[in-house]
């Protein structure tokens, strides 16, 4: 399998605070790659840096063989790197429907946008019920669904998910994991950060462990699931 | 405990004493011109500190200070030659406070830029009401002949500056002030932890109007002429905001440094480069925001921290 995303020696942070220290990892095409780590490890920082919302202070990010370290966010989206951010970041005044439409803003997402919107409503019937409601008045979980749907509308090549199951009811969360598998089946590569480590490792191919801003372990997901250290640190077993 | 408490406030107290001493020296030995500049300086300190007590802490940027200033001036001229002057000054402060309560009660429900523009609107509203009243009374500008001299005014103004500075200092550390800061950060969360937001805002808004009311009264004595379009001019409010942002921070030193800087700058410039004065001021303002956005006090503090490391 070829590498779609590769990150080398990445340093990033907020002003004087350096969070990521020489982070390196890669995501192979058509895979589901998981990044696990405890609270404050720097997962969100890493995802935001890959998406271009934060700039790297050093290191290199390449996507499909191209160096995108200095590429602004919107061009990364045009290339197919799409982040579903932690904290949802919905457009509060757009209705559900408008949000899906703006989700397909980039030129690569024009074609088939309507069909994709219909799929989103299939996927999250709750959103269909609320299609004319402003995103700002949706419940927490509904906003999360909307954020996921918006990301999928952008026709990603690489989908970065930062804690997508946050605030979702179990049935919906379970459906989400099924969806992720389905999305991958359709040829979209996935990089997933999740606190539900068990479900994540079940569907992932490969996994990295991020601790204190550095990658401390990596391996095949099912092997990770068996690792005593992972079980103790993240699965509470 | 008591001694620890005193030690905590030592920098503030000694600063205050030094400033008052400097003021006393100025008024005793300074020439007229210097005292005049001193008056301008302490006037802006009094105004900006009182502004910061509400707007700095609450984040509700008010363009309404011109009203309190104007109301104070109006009380002074209305009572001219009937009320004793110093009684008029006190009455001016109380009247301004009352007006603030009246205006604040409805307007403090509105937030962010809406509040900024609303307070501007309120200020204009009151200004035109006064214009109308003066028109109805057939008054057309009022002359105040026989006002107290510059040095007396300076001493009174220095007192007001000390009052509002101490007020801000004490408020910031009090329960009321803490509540106001929480309101700035997040009003809904503040309510949820028990802050009576409506009352907190209103009380401080009212209190913060007292000093500008008295300042307005004193300044009308300095100008010896009252005309509502000028006394209620929004320029007063804009200048206050400018100074506050230049100074940076919501604590005592910020407004203080901002005032000293702006007054010194305009003293340097308006006489030396009268044609270019305003242009240079504009350029400096822009440069300041772009290169020292945290204000003078913020910049000094970050330098200080950098040096300590």
């Amino acid at each position, binding site marked *: 399998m070829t590498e779609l995303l590769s990150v080398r020696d990445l340093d990033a942070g907020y002003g004087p605070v350096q969070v990521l220290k020489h982070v390196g990892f890669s995501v192979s095409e058509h895979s589901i790659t998981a990044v696990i780590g405890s609270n404050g490890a720097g997962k969100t920082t890493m995802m935001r840096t890959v998406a271009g919302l934060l700039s790297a202070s050093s290191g290199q990010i390449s996507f499909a063989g191209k160096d995108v370290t200095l590429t*602004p966010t919107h061009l990364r989206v045009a290339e197919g790197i799409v982040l579903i951010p932690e904290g949802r970041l919905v457009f509060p005044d757009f209705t559900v429907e408008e949000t899906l439409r703006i989700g397909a803003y980039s*030129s690569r997402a024009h074609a088939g946008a309507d069909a994709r919107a219909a799929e989103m409503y299939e996927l999250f019937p709750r959103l269909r019920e609320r299609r004319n409601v402003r995103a700002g008045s949706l419940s927490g979980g509904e906003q999360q669904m909307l954020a996921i749907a918006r990301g999928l509308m952008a026709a990603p090549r690489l989908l970065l998910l930062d804690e997508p199951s946050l605030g979702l009811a179990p049935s919906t969360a379970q459906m989400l994991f099924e969806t992720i598998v389905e999305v991958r089946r359709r040829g979209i590569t996935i990089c997933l950060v999740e606190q539900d480590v068990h479900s994540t490792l079940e569907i992932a191919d490969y996994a990295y462990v991020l601790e204190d801003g550095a990658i401390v372990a990596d391996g095949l997901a099912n092997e990770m699931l068996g690792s005593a250290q992972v079980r103790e640190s993240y699965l509470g077993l | 405990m008591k001694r620890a408490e005193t030690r905590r406030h030592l920098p503030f107290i000694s600063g205050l004493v030094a400033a008052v001493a400097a003021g006393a020296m100025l008024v005793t030995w300074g020439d007229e011109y210097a005292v005049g500049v001193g008056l301008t300086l302490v006037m802006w300190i009094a105004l900006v500190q009182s502004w910061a007590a509400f707007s700095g802490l609450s984040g509700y940027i008010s363009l309404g200070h011109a009203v309190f200033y104007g109301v104070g001036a109006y009380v002074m001229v209305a009572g001219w030659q009937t009320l004793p002057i110093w009684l008029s000054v006190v009455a001016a402060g109380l009247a301004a406070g009352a007006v603030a309560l009246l205006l604040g009660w409805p307007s403090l429900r509105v937030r962010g830029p809406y509040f900024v523009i609303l307070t501007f609107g309120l200020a204009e509203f009151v200004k035109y009401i006064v214009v*109308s009243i003066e028109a109805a009374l057939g008054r057309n500008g009022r002359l105040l002949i026989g006002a107290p001299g510059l040095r007396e005014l300076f001493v009174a103004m220095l007192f007001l500056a000390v009052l509002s500075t101490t007020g801000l200092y004490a408020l910031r550390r009090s329960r009321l002030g803490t509540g106001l800061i929480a309101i700035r950060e997040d009003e809904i969360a503040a309510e949820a932890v028990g802050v009576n937001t409506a009352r907190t805002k209103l009380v401080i808004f009212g209190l913060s109007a007292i000093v500008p009311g008295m300042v307005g009264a004193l300044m009308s004595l300095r100008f010896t002429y009252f005309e509502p379009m000028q006394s209620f001019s929004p320029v007063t409010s804009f200048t206050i905001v400018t100074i506050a942002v230049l100074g940076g921070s919501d604590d005592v030193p910020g407004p203080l440094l901002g005032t000293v800087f702006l007054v010194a700058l305009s003293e340097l410039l308006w006489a030396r480069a009268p044609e270019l004065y305003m242009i240079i001021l504009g350029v400096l303002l822009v440069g300041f925001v772009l290169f020292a956005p945290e204000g003078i006090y913020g910049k000094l503090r970050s330098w200080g921290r950098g040096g300590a490391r």
Partner: protein
Amino acid sequence: MSVLLSGQLLAAALALASLYALVAMGLNLVYGTMRLLNIAHGEFVMLGGYVTYWSFTHLGISPLLSMLIAPALGACLGMLIYLVLFRRLLRSPKLAARVEANSLLIFFGVSVIFQNVMALLFTSTQRGYVYLDQVINIGNVAMTANRLILFGVASSACLLCLAFFRYTRAGSAVRAVIQQRDASALVGIDIDRLNIMVFALGFALAALAGVLVSMVQEITPFIGFPFTISAFVIITLGGLGNLFGSLLGALLLAAVEVYGTAIISSSFRSILVYGVFIAVLLVKPEGLLGRAVVAR
């Protein structure tokens, strides 16, 4: 009472409303997308007026032609100001954290600079010229041709703008950026380019208003501020960031000025204008079409 029903009064209200709307729209664009409080907006109206005045009286260029030239210059100046002053401001998180206060100060500086440079270059003398000044009677409404042009041009410019933002992709992108910057980047919007576009458009609209203003009233380097104030009142009234709201606000304000003073008395003009403004905000703190935030 018959005065109130006269076509003349309606025409006066509409002409005033169209000018207000035009000025407010440009201001609202810049505020809405970038949260920049442009209190130099009126200065660009003033500059548009001067461009028109000088090119007409010295070069003989028709003000109608200036309707193209001045906005083009305004757009360039807008872009320049964005690139030099605001790009940095919006990018640095430290500066962006207090973007409203900071922009207020920067624009205050810009406003002071423009006013005084103009006063220095051209003196404060009031300037005026006569162009298309004949009175045209339509039914029982009498208006000078230049005021009719003002109405026609200003209202079409506003409607075009509205349509642009309602129905184009760029328009919805602007509305998205207004609400959530990061998320806008994440759906592929080029915020920087959009900002430049908005600056260009906002300042072009102001300059266009300046061309129209110079046709109907005298100009000085200091005519800008009252326009800024009216525009702020209007966009607040209508709901910040809401372009349609600006249109509504402009209509309301013009109606108060023309009909309100007709019903009550012109002596209460300003009291009425600000009174209505205050009353609206008290009933609807987010403006006519603004929206309140909810807590979860």
